[in-house]
């Protein structure tokens, strides 16, 4: 099933008609893996997932099996939250899972809930995903009607309810503790750490597994093909394929399911058909807008797995690859990027609340040709003053790209500063 052109493990049914409907999905084996998992002991499921090398596809890349293993003994009830608040700029793969194969996600979430013995699952979908929300709601209702969800699932004696959670337009609710706060009916202010893991103290103070849509959708496949096989589709440290969201200056943008660790060039040139209008590649943002930018040279031999991208000075993040061609101005990119974070800062802690808007102001001033000589250094220093000083990762999410744009494309900014 592996080729340079793709490993369609998760997405293999997307194109098949009616996959979002339960009856059709059942004919293609939906919920068979749930049945298999229910015959396993919960901790066996966790062991398999751990062995599969499945890592979080939401951005942080944390081992899913390890996360599940953090749930403290004897503390009940427990919950599973599906993070469908896909908001990291450049990322658009979860929406396909929600729209095309919602039962795969529900099945994966149920297997996770079985593994950690959770009694409720909340699928938290971002508010702007009106259509995906409708599809998922219908899928939940269908699954409930057929006994895959609710009391005494498939006669196992185990009950688990699945509900929809609703976002209302705030990027920060994709941060797992922000998501939990939002589900609790509060502002989505990320929680102070420690406690470090929602797996120990999560929704309503109880053990809670928060996993990304894609992460959980892989789980039924792991049960199906086994941990070893799954691991072989990725790297020894990150099993399975990854859904890459490819956007920007390429001929064929889209979502590509490829083995984790695939060369970036394969993604951009073989899959994406190369740079638009025959232009030259200038840079790539490899893992969503929060990641450091990589120059064309840095992309030369880059493999798209967590460790390789980190070694190259960035991160795989949500595997949202934004391709930037030679005609794009990096100072302009800086304005687009900082505008996003200035808008999405939740306001809870000071450096991000006060700093993101300041970055945007300086970036705009430089782009508009009103920049002063010291503005560029100020921009860098302010990013430094945000970086790592905040409650959640949003601080570094704006600081890292800011610093990398300046460091790697300083001449473009300087060219705009008249003085």
């Amino acid at each position: 099933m592996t080729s340079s052109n793709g490993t369609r493990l998760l997405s293999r049914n997307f194109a098949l008609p009616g996959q979002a409907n339960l009856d059709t999905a059942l004919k293609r084996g939906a919920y068979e893996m749930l049945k298999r998992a229910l015959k396993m002991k919960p901790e066996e499921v966790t062991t398999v997932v751990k062995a599969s090398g499945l890592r979080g596809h939401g951005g942080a890349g944390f081992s899913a099996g390890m996360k599940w293993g953090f749930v403290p003994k004897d503390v009940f009830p427990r919950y599973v939250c599906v993070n469908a608040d896909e908001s990291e700029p450049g990322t658009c793969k979860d929406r396909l899972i929600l729209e095309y194969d919602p039962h795969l996600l529900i099945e994966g979430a149920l297997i996770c809930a079985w593994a950690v013995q959770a009694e409720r699952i909340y699928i938290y979908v971002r508010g702007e995903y009106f259509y995906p929300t409708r599809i998922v709601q219908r899928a939940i209702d269908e699954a409930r009607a057929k006994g895959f969800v609710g009391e005494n699932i498939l006669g196992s004696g185990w009950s688990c309810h699945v509900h929809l959670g609703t976002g209302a337009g705030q990027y920060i609710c994709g941060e797992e503790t922000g998501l939990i706060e939002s589900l609790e009916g509060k502002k989505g202010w990320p929680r102070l750490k420690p406690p470090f893991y929602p797996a120990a103290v999560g929704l309503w103070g109880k053990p809670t597994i928060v996993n990304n849509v894609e992460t959980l959708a892989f789980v039924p496949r792991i049960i199906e093909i086994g941990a070893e096989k799954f691991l072989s589709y990725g790297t020894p440290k990150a099993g399975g394929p990854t859904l890459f969201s490819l956007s920007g200056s390429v001929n064929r943008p889209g979502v590509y399911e490829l083995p984790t660790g695939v060369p970036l060039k394969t993604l951009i040139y073989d899959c994406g058909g190369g740079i638009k209008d025959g232009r030259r590649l200038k840079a790539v943002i490899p893992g969503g807008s929060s990641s450091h930018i990589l120059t064309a040279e840095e992309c030369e031999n880059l493999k798209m797995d967590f460790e390789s991208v980190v070694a190259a000075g960035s991160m795989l993040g949500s595997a949202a690859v934004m391709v930037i061609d030679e005609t794009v101005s990096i100072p302009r990119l800086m304005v687009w990027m900082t505008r996003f974070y200035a808008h999405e800062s939740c306001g809870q802690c000071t450096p991000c609340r006060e700093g993101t808007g300041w970055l945007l102001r300086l970036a705009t001033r430089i782009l508009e040709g009103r920049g002063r000589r010291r503005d560029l250094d100020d921009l860098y220093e302010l990013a430094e003053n945000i970086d790592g000083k905040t409650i959640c990762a949003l601080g570094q999410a704006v600081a890292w790209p800011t610093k990398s744009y300046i460091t790697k494309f300083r001449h473009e900014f300087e060219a705009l500063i008249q003085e």
Partner: protein
Amino acid sequence: MPHLEINGKPVEVPAGTNLIEAARRLNIEIPHYCYHPGLAVVGSCRMCQVEVELNGRKSIVVGCNTAAADGMKVFNNTEAIHRIRSGVLEFYLQHHPLDCPICDDAGECDLQNYYLLHGLHDSRVELTEKHHKHKVHDVGPTVVLDSERCVLCSRCARFCREIAGVDELGIFEHGGDSELLNVPGRLLENDYAGNVVDLCPVGALTDKDFRFRRRVWYLKRTPSVCTGCSRGCNIYVDWETSRSYKNPQRRIQRLKPRYNRGVNEWWICDRGRYGYHAVDAENRLTAPRTKSDGESEATVDGVLDRAAEKIKAALAKHGPKSVAVIASSSSSNEDLFLLKRLFADELKVHSLDVTLSGEPKGKEDEILMKADVSPNRRGAVEIGVQPWGGGGVAGDDIVASALDGDYEVLIVVHHDLTRMLSQKERNRLGQNCDYILYLGTHENGMCHLADDVIPIAMWAERDATYTNFQGRVQRTWRPFEPRGEALCEWRVWQELGKRLGHSLPAESVAGVFDSIGTVVASFKGLTWEGLPANGIMLTGVSEPAYRKVQSSHPLPAY
């Protein structure tokens, strides 16, 4: 008990202590805005970041949310930490209006303080770039908000939720637009609202009562105890008398809570906070009065002489039953002790009590406020200022008997009987009592009914002790002298005793206090010199179990 080092100094703290509190024990301040020991930790201000080394691993953490651990090394003064705080401060000052010259908080503002410690940078912001938010916004009847000064620490909002148990302030919008406000139609008006001003680390929330009255560096501070109810919250009296052009009558500028774990923790109620206005109220009694003919101007000595004569005559003619004393549980332990010694022990007066059913009552809640608005009822009971012996007469019965003309001499302290009586009864009391002596602090009906009136010093004008409802003896310190000719109540009894041929113990308040223990068992062993600043439990009375001062229905923190 973890042992750790902070800036190289060793300290041992109870398990669970955070780094800010651990440092405090060494008199090291880790700067912070959002953290307050009485409120939930939110970690949002990012000022308290410190370097920590544990098991060979170095990291930067927030002091408020990091528990001290054995072997931990904490550094509060490194170059890296200084840089971080400087950076955070610059973010705070980005949109700050820099209006210190007209800000009430100047001089006690943590933006100023920390800027001097960690800032001292030039502004990188153009004036035109500053955001504008609500100015001079009435968040409630007692507090004004300047949103542009606000550092969004959320202490005030958390106080309302966690301690007062009401949601009156919130942080609205998000990101750079975040603003602390009330909601339209919902004001900051809980009984503890004034505490948000104390909690505000900057000049965002200011007290209408104190606004624009004094620069804080002119204030002098004296520890004291609130006499507004039987809890006896510990307070500071912030006063200033030298710059009289502002308002010569107003000596106390404000009261602030003083921490006492067993009484009020960090808080006081607004009833107590603003109750100080009585001290310098226009209707304060500042001179003695008399109805006696032939005296052009009353003097304290003259009144005392006459009172002594009247008492002597009554006792000689009709015995102790012809004298009655309605004392007050607002009086101090020393006042009540000498009163008891003179009237009960020496003169054998049985009609003696402090309690009347018609006494004013206040609001009571489970946070701090007690319905009993007198600060020393427990003291009166312990000392025995109550009906005693076989023929003891209780307060209400004393009043009834007085109306019936059973007493030649009636002595009343503080109580305004006229408020409890009809016009008819007031006339009868005046006619049926041969002589009424009133000791009070303010102009009221008794001043007109009584034959003689002696002005009494108020709590802020004297050193005194009060016993709160728990049985805790707490003292006040005198910031300034009594107004006019007012004198301490115990002096009145001492002087009266002399004139009646009874020498009462001691010439000083300390001496009076020390002698209480020689007679009253529950004061045994207590000495004036040995009184701790946060009070001491009566002998034989145990410290009540600790209870966090808060609403019984607190709302969760953020």
